[in-house]
């Protein structure tokens, strides 16, 4: 059977056309007001300024070309440009143009760009009307129009096999997102209102792993807030600010993590689709996530909710019994609310796949620990997290992605390729709550300073093969897996899991320094900052503290983050930038 079953896309919609017309009327009113309120003289002046800027930029680039030696021109034509900072323009949402990567790699990049558009159009065509209607109901849908910019910025500076591998990985993620967006809009009461599809959908808290759905092959598990909140913020960092403002106006203190705050804010401003047979809320990964579920269940009182809540002291096997009973309770809850039956064969088949994927993952780690790391950077990190949490072996198509990437990676290792050609100087590990995607940070660090971010904390999770024969043992392994989900594996169950673990990983990956993300609202990580400092000093390990506030750039902007990094590289590492044009630029409003 094809994944996702094509029949699901063909289930009948029950669109309330009268309500849609009302909505369109409201939007037309808003647009009318916008047109009326706009100062068109200002618009004309801004367009004139843009035209001047464009002219200036073209003149600058032509002059650069004129001043190049024939060798430099040849290098530019074959290997691409080296000053990436000039792609950014102050106050602009998009980069001024696409990156020139040299003839061959620009060709590859363009092919992948086209392939991505093709996939997106084909996926949305499966049921286009609800998806288009959804864009008029939910402003977050509009942010997905800039998904190509997200792809571009996360592959910036990449060449050769590294570029191909990153495209493969991000393609798989985008396909998942596109399919789920279509399903969300199709099933949402406000839009497609497909009741038959809605009955098949089990909603999950966004940080809850999907592996349990492997036992329900006829159902569809969707991380509820992933598309309207979490992934959205990674594509467009400014998109969640209205949610945060809404919930803070409601009374939530501003010191809480923006992830659960945004989720609650999305509830308050009614940005979550209303659908599904039931909702699996969870206590994972942290205190804030526990509490956000009370807001969701209050908003959707008709949505039966199960609280999947695993023990915190997860290495204590004496409480395994409670964890297994919770999983069983969850399975029964899904059965009761959907009429579906748990299927062990389907579960074991998916987990065998997941185990194979884990083997491929371990191979990546092995190569990245050598002096010639190959698959590093934001696309890889995002794929790792997505595969571990959201895909979880359910989608059979992902194995082929792993295989293709593995082949490319081994070839690149044989040839001693550099992930960022000619730019790799330092080895670093990322610890604590990462901000790669918001700030395109590990990619920027590689392009600007030649820093290889070899691996990050959130990737280093459970790698034990899951049981695929004994049913009771399988449930225990599933519990162990869930207990060690992204973030939770490190932040729960004692400081040893996050502090001592870092020193072990520093040794294994042979790093020059640790990029220590300091998420200013994460209380869990904040409570060990002194221990990190003390113990790093004792061991002679350098820590680069970089503050950020995930999807709220008003607290710490990307520019401020880069400044902290620049200072560390200059003063502690005594380094010189690889690309000085990236040291200081404005991208506060850039996707």
């Amino acid at each position, binding site marked *: 059977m094809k994944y996702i079953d094509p029949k699901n896309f063909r289930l009948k919609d029950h669109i309330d056309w009268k309500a849609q017309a009302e909505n369109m009327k409201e939007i037309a009113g808003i647009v009318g007001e916008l047109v009326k309120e706009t100062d068109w003289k200002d618009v004309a002046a801004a367009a004139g300024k843009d035209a001047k800027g464009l002219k200036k930029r073209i003149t600058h680039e032509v002059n650069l070309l004129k001043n190049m030696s024939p060798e430099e021109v040849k290098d530019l034509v074959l290997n691409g440009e080296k000053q990436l900072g000039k792609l950014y323009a102050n106050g602009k949402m998009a980069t001024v143009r696409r990156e020139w990567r040299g003839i061959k790699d620009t060709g590859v990049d363009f092919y992948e760009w086209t392939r991505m558009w093709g996939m997106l159009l084909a996926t949305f065509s499966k049921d286009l009307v609800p998806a288009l209607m959804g864009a008029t109901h939910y402003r977050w849908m509009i942010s997905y129009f800039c998904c190509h910019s997200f792809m571009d910025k996360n592959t910036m500076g990449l060449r050769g096999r590294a570029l191909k591998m990153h495209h493969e990985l991000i393609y798989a993620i985008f396909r998942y997102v596109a399919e789920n967006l279509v399903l969300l809009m199709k099933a949402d009461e406000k839009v497609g209102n497909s009741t038959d599809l809605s009955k098949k959908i089990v909603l999950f808290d966004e940080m809850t792993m999907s592996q349990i759905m492997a036992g329900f092959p006829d159902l569809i598990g969707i991380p509820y807030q992933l598309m309207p909140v979490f992934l959205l913020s990674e594509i467009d960092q400014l998109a969640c600010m209205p949610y945060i403002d809404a*919930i803070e106006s*409601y*009374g*939530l*203190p501003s*010191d*809480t*993590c923006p992830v*659960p705050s945004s989720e*609650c804010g999305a509830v308050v401003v009614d940005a979550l689709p209303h659908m599904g047979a039931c909702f699996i*809320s969870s*206590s994972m990964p*942290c*205190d*804030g996530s*526990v*509490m*956000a*579920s*009370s*807001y969701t*269940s*209050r908003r959707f009182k008709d949505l039966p*909710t199960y*609280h999947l*809540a695993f*023990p*915190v*002291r997860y290495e*204590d096997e*004496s*409480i395994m*019994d*409670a964890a297994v*009973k*919770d999983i069983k*309770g969850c399975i029964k809850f899904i059965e009761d609310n959907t009429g579906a039956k748990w299927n062990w064969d389907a579960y074991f088949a998916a987990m065998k796949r997941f185990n194979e994927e884990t083997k491929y993952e371990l191979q990546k780690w092995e190569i990245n620990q050598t002096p010639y790391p190959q698959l590093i950077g934001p696309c890889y990190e995002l794929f790792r997290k997505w595969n571990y949490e959201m895909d979880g072996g359910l989608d059979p198509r992902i194995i082929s992605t792993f295989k293709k990437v593995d082949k490319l990676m081994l070839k690149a290792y044989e040839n001693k390729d550099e992930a960022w050609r000619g730019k790799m100087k330092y080895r670093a590990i990322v610890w604590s709550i990462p901000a790669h995607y918001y700030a395109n940070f590990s990619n920027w660090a590689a392009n600007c300073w030649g820093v290889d971010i070899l691996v990050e904390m959130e990737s280093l999770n459970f790698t034990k093969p899951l049981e695929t024969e004994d049913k009771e043992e399988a449930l225990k392994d599933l519990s162990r897996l869930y207990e060690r989900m992204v973030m939770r594996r490190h*932040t*729960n*169950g*004692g*400081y040893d899991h996050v502090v001592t673990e870092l020193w072990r990983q520093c040794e294994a990956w042979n790093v020059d320094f640790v990029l220590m993300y300091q998420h*200013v*609202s994460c*209380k*869990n990580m*904040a*409570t*060990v*900052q*002194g*221990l990190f*400092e003390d113990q790093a000093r004792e061991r002679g390990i350098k820590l680069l503290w970089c503050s950020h506030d995930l999807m709220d750039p008003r607290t710490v902007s990307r520019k401020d983050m880069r400044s902290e990094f620049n200072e560390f590289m200059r003063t502690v590492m005594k380094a010189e930038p690889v690309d000085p044009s990236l040291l200081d630029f404005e991208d506060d409003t850039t996707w």
Partner: protein
Amino acid sequence: MQDLKHLIKFENLLDDAANDLVKEAQAEGQYAIGYTCYHMPEVLLNVDNCFSTRMRAPRTGSIDISTYYMSNYTCEFARALLERGIEGGYEYLDGVAGVDACSAMNRCYEHLEVLECNKKPHFFVTHTDVPYKVEDYNVDQVATQMRLRLLDVMHEKLGIDVSDEAIRKAVEEHNELCRVVTEIGNFRKLENPPITGYEFHVISLVSYCCPTAKILPLLKETLEEIKTRKPDPKPWFRARVAIVGSEVDDLDLTRLLEEAGAMVVADRYCYGSFPGREEIRLNDDEDIVKQIARHYMMTSECPRYMAEEKIKQRRDTADRLAKEYGADGIIFEQMKYCDFWAFERPLASHILTEEYGWPTLSIDRSYNVHNSGQLRTRFQAFVEALEIKRIRRNAQEQEVVG
């Protein structure tokens, strides 16, 4: 009203975690076990030769060193305790019974261990897992944890008798304490109570911070005194309030409220009188630790319990207490930087106002409020609002009668 005979003694006992009664008991060979949370059954710490002592950091000043370790935007209670621990304030303890309920407090316990804040050779810190729901298997989970991670450790490290008989004896004494404190608290239901909210807060706290056997006689004497105490003819307060929310062991908060004219008639903190002073009813059929675990889980009002029935219980309890104790309004408070209460407070205070019909004041506060002008203003405004509501209500009633 005439001052209570033991009030100053009680206040003095609350001035220091290692108070005179604690020292006296230790001099007699008893072991002090510190704890901070209602998820840790107090009664299990009072078994045999041990006694529980609620960890506080009274008169907290600077918390700079703990802020270095735990940053400046984490729970001030956890930081104040760590600071006190680093200063040597918990060197008297023989053990800490910790629960992994919230990350800040769990890290506080861990720092006490890592930074070696207590040098006693038998000193221990336990970490027990706490569930998020109250299903049967969760009760088993807590019972198992209490056996393995607490009672067994107490037996191994201190040689404590943790038999069922010893536990039953501790429960009996605990229940007697609960009866006395509850009876004292019930006087607050009267229209003109012979006890103030501040006095009750002192009594409730002192019952947690001293060995039960040593404080019980003084509390019994105080109960008898209150029974015959004559209140002033005209009540001193302008409004009656129930206070609901997170951990409060700071007497200044109640003092500040009463200075603003509000009598605290019911207090539903993390633990104190509700929950905390309900008697534990035991049967002879079921495992005793399991029964105790269930009692604490059922009575807990912790927002960490995320299941719908517990969320509703918390709102219903606030409503019930406010009604039973004749409150005019509810104050919903939270310790600053506490994630659990940070999310609970806006939603619950909104619901208490909109659906339960209670005038509600929603505040966040420091661990030690000292003499906060900001809070004082908010309390005064709330009291005035309650007074105005009462005057309008009375006027409407008179119109109807007229």
